[in-house]
């Protein structure tokens, strides 16, 4: 008990009195706390969703352009995003535009050709159209040529997109605009060519005219494409196939006749050339022979002159006799008339005498 202090220990300060809460307040506080947690979570999710909505994929045959507040973020080819996963700021800041513009594009003309199917065309089973069948303007396409004839024409244009921004953002359907330009060019070129030039005589010129015109239109209208190739086809109306074929046949016959004439010309001139050369060569050889002959005679004359001068008459007799002797040897028929006959008959061109045999009478 001695160890007991004399003064009592100070008592600890009493805890502040807690505000008495009823059960309802406690539940509300708990609910608010939970709600804040949920709201924070939702906010986080919303932000995450917002940011994640900026991801987009570009397919293998596609390309994409990002618009920032409506405008492309880059120009030309730099604006294009290739296949793969990409991210941009979500709308309303950025907006990706995905388009199929990879590689070469192709359009076919939609006017100028008759109604047919590719299968029929490839199989060659298009039904024949008899002469006199009129053209139905709604079904059968054709063009009118410069000489007011009817012809079928068509074209296939291959191009690549050189200005993707213009191609996508300036035209609702740029490939349709390219097709319209092709149709226009086809019709225009056909209207500038006569049917025979278009079909036969100047096929390349017609093709060039179509390509030139479609390129001009594409340039003028700033379609953002570059022409790679332009295949053009043309055909006479099926109603007149036989008539056109007859002209082609006549042209072939004409060519054949002219070719034969050219052959005759070559043969004749070659022959005449050879004959002319031969005549000139003959003349040259005759000239040479004649000159040689005269020269040799002159030499002979020089040799004989001294002997002749010794005794001219004897020399002459001797030479004459010698010559006659030689001549007589070569003469086939020799007829000697000892007396002057009153009449002499000679049978010219008589048949040769038959050889006689010993047995013959």
């Amino acid at each position, binding site marked *: 008990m001695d160890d007991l202090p004399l003064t009592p220990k100070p008592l600890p300060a009493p805890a502040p009195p807690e505000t008495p809460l009823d059960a309802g307040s406690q539940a509300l506080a708990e609910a608010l706390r939970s709600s804040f947690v949920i709201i924070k979570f939702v906010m986080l999710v919303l932000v995450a969703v917002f940011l994640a909505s900026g991801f987009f994929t570009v397919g293998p045959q596609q390309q994409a352009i990002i618009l920032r507040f409506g405008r492309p973020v880059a120009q030309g080819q730099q604006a294009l995003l290739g296949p793969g996963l990409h991210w941009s700021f979500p709308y309303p800041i950025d907006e990706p535009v995905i388009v199929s513009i990879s590689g070469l594009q192709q359009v076919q003309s939609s006017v100028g050709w008759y109604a047919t199917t590719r299968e029929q065309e490839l199989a060659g089973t298009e039904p024949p159209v008899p002469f006199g069948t009129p053209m139905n*303007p709604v079904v059968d396409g054709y063009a009118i040529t410069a000489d007011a004839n009817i012809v079928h024409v068509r074209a296939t244009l291959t191009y690549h997109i050189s200005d993707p921004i213009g191609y996508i953002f300036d035209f609702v359907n740029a490939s349709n605009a390219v097709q319209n330009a092709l149709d226009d060019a086809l019709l225009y070129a056909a209207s*500038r060519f006569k049917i025979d030039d278009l079909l036969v005589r100047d096929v390349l010129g017609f093709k060039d005219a179509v390509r030139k015109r479609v390129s001009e239109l594409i340039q003028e209208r700033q379609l953002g494409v570059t022409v790679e190739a332009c295949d053009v086809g043309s055909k006479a109306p099926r109603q007149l196939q036989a008539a056109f074929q007859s*002209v082609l046949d006549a042209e072939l016959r004409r060519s054949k006749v002219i070719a034969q004439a050219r052959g005759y010309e070559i043969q004749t001139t070659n022959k005449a050339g050879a004959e002319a050369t031969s005549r000139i060569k003959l003349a040259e050889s005759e000239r040479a022979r004649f000159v040689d002959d005269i020269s040799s005679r002159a030499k002979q004359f020089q040799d004989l002159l001294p002997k002749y001068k010794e005794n001219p008459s004897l020399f002459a007799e001797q030479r004459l006799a010698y010559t006659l002797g030689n001549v007589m040897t070569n003469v*086939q028929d020799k007829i000697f008339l000892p*007396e002057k006959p009153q009449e002499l008959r000679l049978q010219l061109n008589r048949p040769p005498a038959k050889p006689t045999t010993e047995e013959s009478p």
Partner: protein
Amino acid sequence: MKRNLFTLSIGLLLFLIFGLLLFVFQVRQSEVAVVTTFGKPTRPITEAGRHYKWPWPIQKVYKFDKRIQNFEDRLTEGLTKDSFNLLTSVYVGWQITDPAAFFPKFAGSLNSISEAERKLEERLGNLKSAIVGQHALSDFVSTSDNAASLLGIEHEMLEAIQAQITTNNWGLEVRFLGIKKLQLPESVSKTVFDRMQAERKVLSDTSQSEGEAEAAKIHSEADRKAAVMLSDADSQATQIRAKGEAQAAESLAVFQQDPELAKFIFQLDALKDSLKDHSTLIFDANTPPFGLLHGVSTNLLKK
């Protein structure tokens, strides 16, 4: 404190996002827009980019595609100045250029683009007939480069439709126009076929006769060339021979020493040459040396 800052940032970000969505809108490069305030168009927008507005229901934004639309009208028949029936169809590339003018006229319909094209087609039908009637068929199809060619006619049509659009203030612009189809009525095509067949017949006949004429010309030309070549050759041959004779004449001086002997030798040579082959010689006893046979009985005498 850190947790509160983070929460505050997230909240601010969300506030910004919602603010952007409510007050900001973007107009694409391919669009034009009109902002209406309580339904009345108050602000046309033709520039792409970021724009602001009061939230609905105070202001509302109407966007239109300002890209060039492709439109093709139907085939319509017209009579040319030289009384040919022609069917024409054109395509036009048009776009909305003034959304404030376009909005009140076309935005009321379900599809403003289709409505605009319907009106365009109405106008095109009338003006095509009028312009076709001002031109002859040869203005549409011709090889010559005159001013009234197909291109000129297209240009006339473009100017005419643009003038009408401007007058009516549709808020559109036709950027280009081209003739897509140029055809003949069905009955006329049959007549054209008849003419074409007759032309083919003429061409076929002409081709054949031309071929024959050309061949005959080539034949005669070949014969003429051959005759000329031979004639030239003969001429050359004559000249060559003349040269030979001139050369031979140089030897005449030798014979001048005794013309009698020369003459005798020439005669002997001529005699030899003339009696070379298949010759028949008739002579009598006066011909030397057959005078030696004078008085001798012969086979003739025997007879």
